[in-house]
C-alpha cells in the first residue's frame, strides 16, 4: 500500500505541474510501471515461468499464423507489418485521462476490432518483440509472458467482449464504439491481472537459500492490488479511449474498414473473423499441436522434481528431502513444511497432483495427459465458444450490409 501512496504522489507531481523536474524524471518510470505499462522486464520471472509462458504462447502463435495465412494469403505480409508498426506507434501515444494524468494504450483493442483476434495476436506480438529487442522496453526472456498476457489473452478477451456488447448492431451505431472501448478495457485489465499473478507467484516459489526472493519480490497480495489499481484506472482507461475513439472516428470517416468482409475483392486488407473459419480446417493444426504435446515427457528426463515445485508431503519424505538438499546447494530443507506452503496447499487440490494421477501407472503418460489437459482446456474452450458464436456470426454477416 506504501507503494501505491508513493506512486500516486509522484504521479500528481509529474502531471499536476509542480515544478520539480527531478521528481518528474524519477516519477516517470514508476508511474509508467504501476499505472500504464505491464511490460515485464528481464529478471522478474524465473526460468521455469518464462519457459512455461513461451511454451503456452507458441501454440497460439502457430494457430494464429495458420488462420491469418488462410484468410489473407498474399496480403498477410503487408497488412501484418503495417498494423504491427501502428501498434508500436500507438504504444508511444500519451493518452490524456481524467484528472490531468496520462496513460498508454497497447492497441490490442483496436487491432482486434478491426482485424479479428488472430491477426491482432500476431500484430501486437510483433510490436512487443520490436519494442523489447530494439527499444529495450520489456524483457527478452519475458517476451513470451508479455505476448501471452497482452497479445494473446488480450486479443481473445477483447474479441469476446466486443462481440458480446456489440451484438448485431449496425456497423456505424454508437454501441459498437462503446463495445470497442469496453473490449480494450477488459483486455488490458485481464492482461494486467495475469501479469500480476505471474509476478506474485515468484516470491512464493523462487527464493534463494536465505529466503530472499530471487525474482519479483512481491507476493500475490501486494502484486495484484498494485497492478490492478493502476490498470483499472490509468492503462485501462487509456485503452478504452483509444479503442473507442478510433472506432468512432472510422465510423464517421470510413465505415467500410469496420466491415466484416475478409479479403477477396476489397483493396484494403479484409478482417479475418473467427466466424468465417470452421472447425475442419484446423484439424491439421490439432494434430501438430498433439505432436508437440507428446514431446513434453522430455521434461521427465530431468531427474527428480523441478526446483521449487514440491508438495507439502515432500518435506517429510526422507528421499525427497535428500533430493531437495542436493538441488539446493546442499542446504537441508526445514524439518517441517514451511508455513506458507502448508497454508496454500490446503487451498487447492489439483486434479493431477505431481502431474501424475495415481491411477495411472506410468508417470510419463500422466505428464502428457496433464499437458494435453491444460492446453486443451484453454484452446478448446476458446475454440468451442468461437464455434458456437460462429453460428450467430454467420447470421450477422448476412444481416449487415
Amino acid at each position, binding site marked *: 500500500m506504501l507503494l501505491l501512496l508513493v506512486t500516486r504522489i509522484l504521479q500528481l507531481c509529474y502531471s499536476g505541474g509542480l515544478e520539480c523536474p527531478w521528481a518528474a524524471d524519477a516519477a516517470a518510470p514508476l508511474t509508467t510501471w504501476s499505472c500504464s505499462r505491464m511490460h515485464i522486464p528481464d529478471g522478474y520471472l524465473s526460468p521455469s515461468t518464462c519457459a512455461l509462458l513461451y511454451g503456452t504462447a507458441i501454440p497460439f502463435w502457430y494457430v494464429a499464423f495458420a488462420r491469418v495465412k488462410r484468410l489473407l494469403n498474399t496480403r498477410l505480409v503487408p497488412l501484418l*507489418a503495417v498494423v504491427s508498426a501502428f501498434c508500436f506507434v500507438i504504444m*508511444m501515444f500519451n493518452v490524456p485521462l481524467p484528472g490531468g494524468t496520462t496513460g498508454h494504450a497497447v492497441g490490442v483493442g483496436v487491432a482486434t476490432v478491426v482485424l479479428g483476434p488472430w491477426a491482432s495476436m500476431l500484430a501486437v506480438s510483433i510490436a512487443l518483440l520490436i519494442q523489447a529487442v530494439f527499444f529495450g522496453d520489456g524483457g527478452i526472456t519475458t517476451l513470451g509472458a508479455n505476448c501471452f498476457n497482452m497479445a494473446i489473452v488480450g486479443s481473445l478477451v477483447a474479441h469476446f467482449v466486443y462481440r458480446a456488447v456489440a451484438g448485431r448492431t449496425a456497423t456505424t451505431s454508437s454501441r459498437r464504439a462503446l463495445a470497442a472501448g469496453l473490449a480494450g478495457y477488459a483486455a488490458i485489465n485481464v492482461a494486467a491481472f495475469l501479469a500480476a499473478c505471474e509476478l506474485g507467484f515468484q516470491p512464493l516459489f523462487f527464493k534463494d537459500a536465505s529466503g530472499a526472493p530471487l525474482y519479483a519480490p512481491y507476493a500475490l497480495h501486494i502484486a495484484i492490488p498494485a497492478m490492478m489499481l493502476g490498470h483499472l484506472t490509468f492503462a485501462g482507461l487509456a485503452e478504452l479511449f483509444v479503442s473507442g475513439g478510433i472506432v468512432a472516428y472510422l465510423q464517421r470517416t470510413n465505415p467500410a474498414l469496420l466491415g466484416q468482409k475478409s479479403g477477396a475483392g476489397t483493396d484494403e486488407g479484409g478482417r479475418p473473423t473467427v466466424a468465417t473459419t470452421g472447425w475442419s480446417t484446423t484439424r491439421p493444426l490439432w494434430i501438430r499441436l498433439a505432436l508437440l504435446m507428446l514431446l513434453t515427457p522430455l521434461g521427465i528426463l530431468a531427474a527428480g522434481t523441478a526446483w521449487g515445485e514440491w508438495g507439502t508431503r515432500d518435506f517429510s519424505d526422507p528421499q525427497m528431502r535428500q533430493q531437495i538438499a542436493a538441488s539446493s546447494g546442499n542446504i537441508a530443507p526445514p524439518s517441517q513444511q514451511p508455513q506458507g506452503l502448508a497454508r496454500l496447499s490446503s487451498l487447492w487440490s489439483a486434479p493431477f497432483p505431481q502431474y501424475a494421477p495415481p491411477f495411472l501407472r506410468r508417470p510419463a503418460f500422466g505428464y502428457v495427459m496433464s499437458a494435453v489437459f491444460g492446453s486443451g482446456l484453454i484452446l478448446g474452450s476458446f475454440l468451442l465458444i468461437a464455434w458456437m458464436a460462429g453460428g450467430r456470426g454467420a447470421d450477422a454477416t448476412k444481416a449487415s450490409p
Partner: protein
Amino acid sequence: MTRANKNSRGVIERSLGSFVDALEYAFHAEALARKNGLLQKLDPRIKILALLPLIVIAALSRRLWVIAILFIIGVAVATLSNVPLRTLVRRVWLGVLTFSGLISLPALFLTPGQSLYALPLLGWVVTAQGLRAALYLIMRAQTAATFSVLLVLCTPWSSLLKALRVLRLPIVLVVVLGMTYRYIFLLLRTAHDMFTSRKSRTVGRLTGREQRRAAAASAGVLMSKTLQLSGDVYLAMHSRGFQGEVYVLDEFRTDWFDWVTLATFLTIAALAFWFGR
C-alpha cells in the same frame, strides 16, 4: 525537429517527445553500428548466439556475484566496441536503476526475514532478505539490459532482423519484421507531423475532453493511413512479382575471428551457468 521539453505538461508535447526520442535512438544506433569495434566486426548471427545466452543467464542466475561478474564483462565489451559509457548511462543504466530501484524499494521493508536496520523516524525495518531481493532485481535488470542494448547498438537493425533466422525463426516472420521496422519510422514521422501541426494550430490549453478527442482523432487518422498503406504496399509488392513466397538475401560471412569470439562467449556463459545454478 525540435526536442520537446520533458517537463512540459501538454499531452501533445509529451507524445512528440516520445516520437523524437525513438527516432533519435534509431539514428544513434545506426551511427554506433558503423564504428569500428569488437562487436561491430562480428557477423550478426554470431553476435546473437554469443550474447543471447548471457542475457538469459544474467536474468535467471541465482548467484549475485555471477551476475556482477557478467555485468563487468558487459562493460568491458562495451568499451572494446567503442560504445561510450555515457551512452550506456543515459540510455540504460539510469533508466533501469530508477525503474527497478523504485520498484524494489518497498521490498526492502516488506520482505520478511532477518532485520538489519530500522529507519529512525518511521520505524520501518530493512531486512537482509529484502536487501538481497532488491539487489537481485536491480543487478539482473542492469546486466540483461546492458547486453541487449549492446547487441542492438552495435548491429544495423536490418541485419539483426535477418540474423534472427539463426534462431530458427520462420522466414515470413523475418520479412514481416523487416517491413514493420521500415514502416515504424514512416508512421512515427507521420504522427510527429500530425501532432506538430495540431500543436501549431492550438491556441491556449485544451480541456481534458478536447485533448482526448484530439488524441483519438490523431490515432484514427493514423489507423486510416495504416490500412490504406497496407493496400498500396500490397500493390507495390504485387507489381514486382510477389506471389506469396518470401525470400531473404543476406551477405553474412564468418571468419576465424567470429568463431573464436563465439567460443569465448559461450565458455563464459557455460561457466556463469554452472556457478549460478
